[in-house]
């Protein structure tokens, strides 16, 4: 893309600061719309550099039990795709700089339908999309129409994405590359830091895009260790788990919910601020 996006600006600024981005994931509408809106509003000040917002889906095949449950909570509380876009629009009124990336599965986009979804997402202030089950082989369906509207299409690269396949994964990617640190589902296994850094280096040799690492990063210590060899660290299940822990007996939000998540984001962020990052010098 020739047009500089919020995502590009954010990663460029962090590169100047010499540190990695903290990318935080929560599910839209978890545990309910209002609580999620307050949570989003508090994330940038707590230290989130990029916000990933999950689009709830009934059948999240790439997610572990923690994020599956968050999708179920959101849907049970009445979350829909239109409400997810409304959350972004509400956030955007207060914050013009923090990038928001929607992450989820294709079907709710497909039936929206896709072109109208892309228009509405752009209008709401969405910056990028991660759609787990649309591979490069189907770029004409969603990736290229998104890019045409200035929405970044962020792809997952995984330990099974070998050098034969990597060029296809990177071809129409924009924004950043999301390196999945394990073969598996979200929030289950713990990544091996050295192996992750080697893989990030491999991807960096093939692209000028920043590389963020996720799936299995839970603690400030892990985040800091991963950040030493990456442009960003994604934390999802740990934050979603913090939401769950603070829910009342009836499953609804309590006064602890928002502060507990923001507190965790702060501690994750402070780890990254002390860690000397190793930004993608190729970029």
């Amino acid at each position, binding site marked *: 893309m020739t047009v500089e996006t919020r995502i590009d600006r954010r990663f460029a600024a962090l590169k100047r600061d010499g540190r990695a981005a903290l990318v935080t994931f929560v599910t839209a509408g978890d545990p309910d719309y209002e609580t999620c809106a307050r949570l989003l509003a508090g994330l940038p000040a707590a230290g989130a550099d990029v916000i990933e917002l999950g689009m709830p889906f009934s059948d999240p095949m*790439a997610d*572990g039990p923690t994020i599956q449950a968050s999708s179920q909570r959101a849907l049970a509380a009445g979350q829909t795709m239109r409400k997810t876009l409304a959350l972004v629009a509400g956030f955007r009124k207060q914050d013009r700089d923090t990038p928001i990336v929607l992450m989820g599965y294709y079907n709710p986009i497909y039936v929206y*339908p896709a072109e109208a979804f892309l228009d509405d997402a752009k209008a709401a202030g969405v910056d990028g999309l991660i759609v787990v089950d649309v*591979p490069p082989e189907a770029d*004409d*369906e969603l990736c290229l129409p998104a890019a045409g509207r200035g929405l970044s299409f962020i792809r997952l690269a995984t330990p099974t994405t070998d050098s034969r396949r990597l060029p296809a994964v990177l071809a129409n990617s924009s924004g950043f590359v999301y390196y999945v640190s394990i073969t598996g589902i979200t929030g289950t296994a713990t990544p091996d830091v050295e192996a992750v850094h080697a893989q990030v280096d491999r991807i960096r040799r093939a692209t000028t895009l920043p590389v963020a690492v996720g799936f299995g990063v839970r603690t400030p210590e892990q985040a800091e260790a991963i950040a030493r060899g990456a442009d960003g660290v994604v934390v999802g299940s740990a934050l979603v788990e913090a939401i769950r822990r603070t829910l009342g007996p009836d499953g609804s939000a309590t006064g602890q919910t928002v502060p507990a998540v923001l507190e965790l984001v702060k501690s994750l962020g402070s780890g990254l601020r002390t860690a000397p990052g190793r930004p993608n010098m190729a970029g």
Partner: protein
Amino acid sequence: MATDGRAAPVSGPNSYRMGPDERGYFGLFGGRFVAETLMPLILDLEQAYAAARSDPEFQAELSSLNTHYAGRPSPLYFAERLTEHLQQASASAGKRGGAKVYFKRDELNHTGSHKINNCIGQILLARRMRKTRIIAETGAGQHGVAVATVCARYGLPCEIFMGATDVERQKPNVFRMKLLGAKVNAVTAGAGTLKDAMNEALRDWVTNVRDTYYIIGTAAGPHPYPAMVRDFQSVIGKEVRDQMMEAEGRLPDTLVACIGGGSNAIGLFHPFLDDKAVKIHGVEAGGHGLDVPNGHCASMTGGKPGVLHGNRTYLLQDDDGQILEGHSISAGLDYPGVGPEHSWLKDTGRVTYVAVTDKEALEAFQLCTRLEGIIPALEPSHALAHVCKLAPTLPQNDLLVMNMCGRGDKDIFSVAEHLGMKM
């Protein structure tokens, strides 16, 4: 190729048997909608299957196992008393209808259903690919049993994912799988049925992708599964062609099969798709009725196109694109999607798809048991219920073949419960 998924139905291709295209599409439907972790493996699988399919040694091994292990060919049986019964039904309505009804006896296969046809093919492929661990999803447990069987035969460890609800209503099959040495994982997510089992199998596959082969049980999922499973199941239709020629000296006029994911149906239908005179009917699970919200599993007659489990196809879903659980008395049909080739055959109009309710299927189950001495599974009981409606409207010389794709031993407990009978 349509890009927005809203293209008008394809009409009148030169052949209905050429699909899918090189990207795995049957018209709008099919494709490879999976997570990146799985993509390299899916591409390997496509290559491995293409090589195996054209390898005479693979075909010879497959054919030998079909004969000596599965017990093929299965008989084509003239259901004489059912035929008489349906002729009488037509006569009592003042008409002279009633087709000559044949059953393709795939319930007589080893393990009791058509599922073994596919499992033999895929286990041979898994061995060629040097995979050392097998996983599968199952609904009624027929596929799970067939997978556990071929894994026992080849000494490969095997894990089966089965919805907790299905584990409860298909206990005999759960026990059979355990006897065969499989580990059965009860999936409690969602409603605990086939869809949830498939999600969990996909999660396992993503986690263990390097050594694990996933034997998908129906003609659905990412390309090449729909085409591959269809090919392995097409032995059904090929045999019917030969057997009907031998029995009646001509091809059948009408084909009927039940549809969950649709593997037995596509296996029967595919060899006849280009015989335009052959009328083809697919029967979906109408559950409590198509007018009952979330009360049926008729994805084509009561759903709309979407993307799930690796393919674009007709799905049961709400306006927000959330997948519905659906309902059917039959665990094997209790799935909110359908194989993509069926979706295409629906939109092209080549196959007529209808739905039959739980109640109608139960009645057909009992009728067949009493008239023919064959206890059908609840899945083909749906096809049978449609035959009971359709045959009286056809001429008496119409040659109708229904795929008796599974036997009902596994269902006797839940049938007893539905009929209020004590065992």
